[in-house]
């Protein structure tokens, strides 16, 4: 078993340009180095380094007993992770694409999510299920789904999604260290997004939402890929005299009611933005929670700016489906601002 010198996890002195994919890769690396119970497996995560290269170089460094290619069967991947976690391991498994996690649905919903409760807390399952999610990458059918509502509707699961490289590193480290099973949703279209940062980095605890741009007129509640959309809308809004606050939810379950409510009480107006279809989507939960807690502070109904209630479209049409900054601003304009 390879044990990597701890020097590799020491603070790097100067910030460098880091993609989200690289930050995730480094998080896996550092977790593998720190805890010998961490193992990484899934489809093509070994020599290839994963179809998005998030596991690049890990097998070469840690060996095939820590990082390996599994058979192509997602229920098998998650179901074996349950057994491994029962035996004291911390498996980090990859579902190659969002829609390919569906064969594992039963294991995730009936086993992973419920084991701790079923056994009165005697059996914890510290499993991290990484799901590359959402669209905007020109993917063919079944490669661009947003499945968060399914996972969030299941008690027992923690569901988080980073929107930037620093959070990607910090939240993945925290997920792997968590004794609760975590659905870790990685917005594919942001894998190549770069930031200047030093790794390792510790950002806010992953259960917290973060105000990533302060404003006074409207709160845009976004997560994963749509945080960038919201920030772009805020830029354009500012040119037109609109002061937009952007909240990166980061954790969908648990939901940080306090941070979101504080923002909404300041601005009195809120819109939630996600790629997933609207009907029965996560935005409905956000709208309901925010309304229940802040009704008298609201000047307008909460809007949901989302993908349409259609299956995800083919690549040449996805630009018409995805919420854009323009669609966000158009939606905001429908409010009666005189109220």
């Amino acid at each position, binding site marked *: 078993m390879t044990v990597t010198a701890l020097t590799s996890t020491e603070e790097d002195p100067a910030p460098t340009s880091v993609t989200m994919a690289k930050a995730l890769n480094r998080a896996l690396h550092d977790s593998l180095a720190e805890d010998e119970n961490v*193992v990484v497996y899934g489809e093509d995560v070994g020599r290839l380094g994963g179809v998005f290269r998030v596991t690049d170089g890990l097998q070469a460094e840690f060996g095939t*007993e820590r990082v390996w290619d*599994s*058979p192509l*069967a997602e*229920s*098998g991947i*998650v*179901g*074996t*992770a*349950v*057994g*491994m*976690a*029962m*035996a*004291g*391991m911390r*498996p980090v498994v990859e579902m190659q694409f969002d829609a390919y996690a569906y*064969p594992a649905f*039963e*294991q995730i919903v*009936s*086993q992973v999510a*419920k*084991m*701790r*409760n*079923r*056994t*009165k*807390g*005697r*059996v*914890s399952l510290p499993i991290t299920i990484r799901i590359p999610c959402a669209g905007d990458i020109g993917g063919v059918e079944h490669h661009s789904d947003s499945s968060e509502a399914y996972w969030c509707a299941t*008690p*027992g699961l*923690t569901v988080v999604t980073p929107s930037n490289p620093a959070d990607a590193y910090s939240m993945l480290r925290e997920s792997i260290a*968590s*004794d*609760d099973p975590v659905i870790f949703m990685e917005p594919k279209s942001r894998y190549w997004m770069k930031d200047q940062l030093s790794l390792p980095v510790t950002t806010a605890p992953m*259960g917290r939402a973060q105000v990533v741009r302060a404003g006074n007129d409207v709160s845009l509640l976004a997560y994963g890929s749509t945080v960038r959309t919201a920030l772009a809308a805020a830029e354009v809004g500012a040119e037109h005299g609109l002061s937009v606050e952007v909240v990166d939810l980061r954790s969908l379950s*648990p*939901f940080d*009611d306090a941070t979101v409510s504080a923002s909404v009480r300041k601005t009195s107006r809120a819109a939630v933005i996600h790629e997933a279809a609207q009907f029965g989507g996560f935005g409905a939960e956000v709208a309901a929670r925010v309304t229940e807690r802040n009704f008298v502070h609201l000047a307008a109904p909460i809007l949901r700016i989302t993908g349409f209630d259609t299956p995800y479209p083919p690549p040449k049409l996805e630009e018409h489906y995805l919420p854009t900054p323009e669609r966000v601003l158009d939606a905001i304009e429908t409010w009666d601002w005189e109220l």
Partner: protein
Amino acid sequence: MSIDVPTTGRALPELQPVRFIGANGQPADTDTAGLTPPSLSTLLGLYRQMVHVRRFEAQVTALTKQGRLATYPSAAGQEATEVGATTALGPTDWLFPTYRDSAALLTRGVPVAEILAAFRGDWHCGFNPYEYHISPAATPLATQTLHATGYAMASKLKRRGECTLTFFGDGASSEGDAHEALNFASVWQTPTVFVLQNNQYAISTPLRAQSNATMFADRAAGYGIPGIRVDGNDVAAVFAAVSAALERARDGEGPTLIECLTYRIESHTNSDDPTRYRDSAEVDHWKQLDPIDRVEKYLRSHGALDDVGNEEILASAEVLAASVRDAMNTDSELDPTEIFAHVYANPRTHLREQQAILEAELAEAGRR
């Protein structure tokens, strides 16, 4: 560059199941696949446990009909497979059972009240898995076969020497998870024993509606692992086959699929009505192949059991039955707020808020 092609594990099992003891207690003359039968003293212990298990199943079924349990799936008729396979396990090995394997839990020493907590509706899993090395009994069938494979993989990676055994049935064999588990276990060469209890029925669905294959044990060849078919009503054959498979697993030779031919004598659960889908002649036929009678005859004919010894075993089974009645006739004290206690390792604000609602309701009802 050459591509490795596995060449082992291609032989198909014998059609005739391995059997040491025939239905009338006589030594069987079938091929026993090189297996070693258990000693007479081991066999006596297995017989004793089978008698206990049958009395347990009868008592729990009766209590269920009296309304003391919400539901109960009996394994009456399958005692040889339940007891033979479970007894072969070492103390550090792990069992991954289904809901019909209470007999196995009893055999492994789980207290009666803890076994039956789920069926009387107290909690989903009533025992501590780490205390008995048994995972919670799976209700979504075949899911547990993957857990057994994963646990065994961890044992292999950590060189802990623990093996796993999972029970699944002819019905569960149709689930994708059963296929995935056999394949993963073979590819990863995990120390796992797959015990397929072919009891002929999945609730009402008969074997012929479940599979068109000659036998389930054949499937092993397709996964590149050994498969064997045994008489699941012969405890000697089950014990010998599972012991050999565990030995292979412990020696690093990977998983084994064992098909045990047996029969579910009772209904699926108390809410089932088997007269709708099978006739009594079929049940009577299988009662002639009873797993307990034949061992008793075998032991008596080999001088290992007499009337006095048998009376003692039957009397101890009555003591067990009395303890089952005592346990189930005691009202359980449940704290409704415990439904919030174990959902997450990291507590959640909104669950605390919901718990407060329930606590207020309980206080108003005078229950707090």
